[in-house]
């Protein structure tokens, strides 16, 4: 490892360089809103995940490291801050999304800068943030001199980039060969087959068991089979997290829709409903509207 002084070349004040490096992290956040191909978003996302916090730390502390030591410090610190960001989000009960991780990571970068600023204030280093930083710092990561070795590194980098593009493209388009020709729905389980055991206008009980982690405060259940509404009894929330209840419906002689609406302030997750009355239901499907204030389960009932 070598301690170096500022080298000749294009330079800018430290505060501006650090601000610029922080700003680059925001590009990944901006790109996460979509609209750009994945391979293009790889560059800012890669910067955020593999470089940004390390670059911030390196720039803030000073230009002391170079070569593979700098590379190692940069990537290691950056990987760890991403993991820390995820863990912190979970600890704060914030949904762990890519954008949230990126923003939390940015927050950790600010903590690094603040830590260094505090330390520099303590050791009374006036003018530290105004010191010029050499902007031609690319070679410091490789620690190599000469055009030919740098060319090799650049070539390999391009190869890696092309490789990632290929991975991205092939990975997105190549799906496992799925053939349904051999698949058949077996007879015997009324919950999955199309068997009808109800006669038109017959009343039947449908028992609902909804395995849910949602914080259900109130549950309003209504049943509509086609245009005919039927009375429905209440759902009970069990301590196991299950909701159970019984709905009475009157089946018309046509296909209808059975709707359950759960009112919950925090609709997080609802597993597939298990409808245990074998006589009434064919191919139940649940549609979940996750972001709406109401959690809506729509259960299809084919009645013939």
């Amino acid at each position, binding site marked *: 490892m070598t301690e170096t002084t500022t080298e000749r070349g294009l330079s800018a004040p430290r505060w501006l360089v650090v601000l610029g490096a922080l700003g680059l992290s925001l590009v990944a956040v901006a790109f996460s809103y979509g609209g750009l191909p994945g391979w293009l978003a790889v560059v800012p996302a*890669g910067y955020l995940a593999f470089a940004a916090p390390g670059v911030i730390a390196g720039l803030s502390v000073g230009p002391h490291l170079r070569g593979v030591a700098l590379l190692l410090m940069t990537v290691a610190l950056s990987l*760890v801050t991403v993991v820390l960001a995820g863990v912190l989000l979970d600890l704060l009960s914030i949904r762990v999304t890519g954008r949230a991780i990126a923003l939390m990571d940015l927050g950790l970068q600010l903590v690094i800068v603040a830590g260094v600023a505090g330390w520099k204030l303590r050791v009374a280093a006036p003018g530290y943030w105004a010191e010029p930083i050499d902007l031609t710092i690319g070679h410091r990561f490789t620690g190599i001199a000469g055009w030919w070795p740098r060319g090799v590194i650049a070539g390999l980098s391009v190869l890696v980039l092309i490789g990632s593009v290929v991975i991205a493209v092939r990975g997105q388009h190549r799906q*496992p060969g799925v053939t349904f020709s051999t698949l058949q729905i*077996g007879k015997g389980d009324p919950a999955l087959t199309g068997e009808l055991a109800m006669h038109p206008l017959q009343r039947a009980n449908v028992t609902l068991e909804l395995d849910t982690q949602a914080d259900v405060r109130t549950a309003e259940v209504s049943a509509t089979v086609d245009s005919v509404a039927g009375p429905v009894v209440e759902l009970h929330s069990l301590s196991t997290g299950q909701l159970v209840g019984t709905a009475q419906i009157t089946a018309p002689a046509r296909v209808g829709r059975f709707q359950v609406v759960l009112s919950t302030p925090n609709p997080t997750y609802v597993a597939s409903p298990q409808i245990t009355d074998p006589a009434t239901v064919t191919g139940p499907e649940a549609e979940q509207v996750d972001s709406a204030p109401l959690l809506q389960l729509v259960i299809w009932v084919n009645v013939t």
Partner: protein
Amino acid sequence: MTALSLIAREREGELPEVTAPRRRINLNLGLWLTVWAVVLVAISYHRSAEGASRSGYYALFWLGFLPPMLYLAARLLWPRLGPWRLTETLILAVLTWFPKFLRNPYGALYHDEYAHVAAVNDIGTSGGLYTRNPLISIIGQYPGLHVLTWALQQLTGLSVWSAGELLTGVTHLVGVVAVFVIGRTLFGSERAGGVMAFVYFANPNALYFDNQFAYESVGIVLLLGCIALTILATAATGRATRALLTVTACLTAAGCIMTHHLSTLFLFVLVSLITATVLVAGRANVAPWVAVWCSTVLFSALWLSSAARATVSYLSPYAWPAIQQLFHSAAGSGKSRQLFTGSVSPTYERIASYIVPLILAGLTAYAALTYWRVKAQWRQYPVHVGLAIFGLLYFPAAVFTFSARGAEGAHRSWGFSYLGIALITAAVVCHPSRPALHRANPAFRLPPRVAGAARKTGMLLVVMTIVVGNVAAGLNDAYRFPGPYQYGSETRSMTPELISLAKEFRSHEGRAKVVTDRFTSLALALYGDAFTASPSASFPAWNLLTSAKNPSRELAFQLTNSNYHYLIIDSRMATLLPLVGIYFQRNEPFYGSSSVPFPAAALDRLNTVPWASKVMQTDHYSVYRLHLEVLPSP
């Protein structure tokens, strides 16, 4: 003057025999050999997938992979060929990464990969961490890999698999750089750094196992990064630089702890060993090691007592039974494990893998003899001593490969202990008096040119044996090469039929809980979003298939109470033994059985029993809905 300081002087050009004018070697050769390797290895995979003869595709693989490895070895063994630089390090990183990448570039294939992809998907489903995974119960408690992959996937829009491959590729490169930095800093020689990187990445797990999409791949790299950063901090002269490196090393240790349990264990052992030797030696600059040790202990205690409480109970069943088995084998009262049982790898690979431990034992003995003369000066090199002692763990671990319970742990430990083996090798290879010792051998009075050529050929043969033997000792044929369907193989049992069944099952049942065999559960967990059961002695779900009687009331209660409403069977269970010897879990009563424990009649009766009804069927798979509530309660 010590031998290690001689190495540093060699680097600085004070030793004439090493600093003779260097012949320039064309860098293109390394790159072209790498391209050659990629092409040949790809062809060998293609041939094996077509069912070509084994000897043919194995030969193609080695014909492609060995030349660049030998080229790199030659550059290390003959320093006059030019200095080892970052370029060679990058070539080594690419060489030791691409065989696994080419093995399954499009999606999960290894057992753990299914579990980890499902764990990443779980973050998206639940919005939080620590979700219990059906395939490997503990991985949710170590979310480092999953958070990193999820962040990349979300920010780039790539698939989870592509994001994971990008991540493991980058971390692999960082791992190579970290080992290079360790060697370069400890010995003050880039050549020593190269030797350490080369030897470490010739370990049995390096080529395939540690490049899979699993938490171990990232955990090991964070361990290596932590050690390298601490060594750099110790060597740093500036106060600010030392502080930055020490803090980063401490954070990297925390990252390792949040990512992988075994890496945490080995990090603790390694850091403890080095810190102890540094303290006993009374060297200056002990602060970074003490800080990293304190961080490791603190973060481990915090993590294990809060997020990862199940770690001890998860790992302990492997440790004590393995020791018991070894004792029984030694006493002649137990059956020891036979190496390469059922293996189809070529004879030369197996022979090489048996020779490798002997070579390493010889190297270690040689290093001990060489440095014994200067043992009084060990206090100047406490980190070297600590790492070397850590490397000695390789040898007892090799003994555990003869224990059925301990073999897996032994295999995994090599990925860590080889760091010490690499250091020992670097100390031997880069020892400045080595050529003189060879020349002084009176047994061979050959002309210098012939003796030199013989010595070089011998060294390359040793390198070749280590590379071939270690790859063979790592993973079996089904993991290394694609091929036709094989029942009971985790890598060759995934078929379009099974994937379509899993997807169709999901479309009907969502995240249902299912009892099924180990191989079907991989597809069900990933493509079917199902939570598959993990049968055990206290939860013998396999009794649904083995017994002609109804399931016991206790089992029926367990299944009903835990909402296991589906049973999926593969009809081939009735006729074939699994390649890996396991139908469900390693602790199943019929593990390693030589006869099929599920007769066709036992499977057929499921069509008539009142507590199960078939709801789906494909050519080989049947899905039953369980109605165990019809059985009397316990």
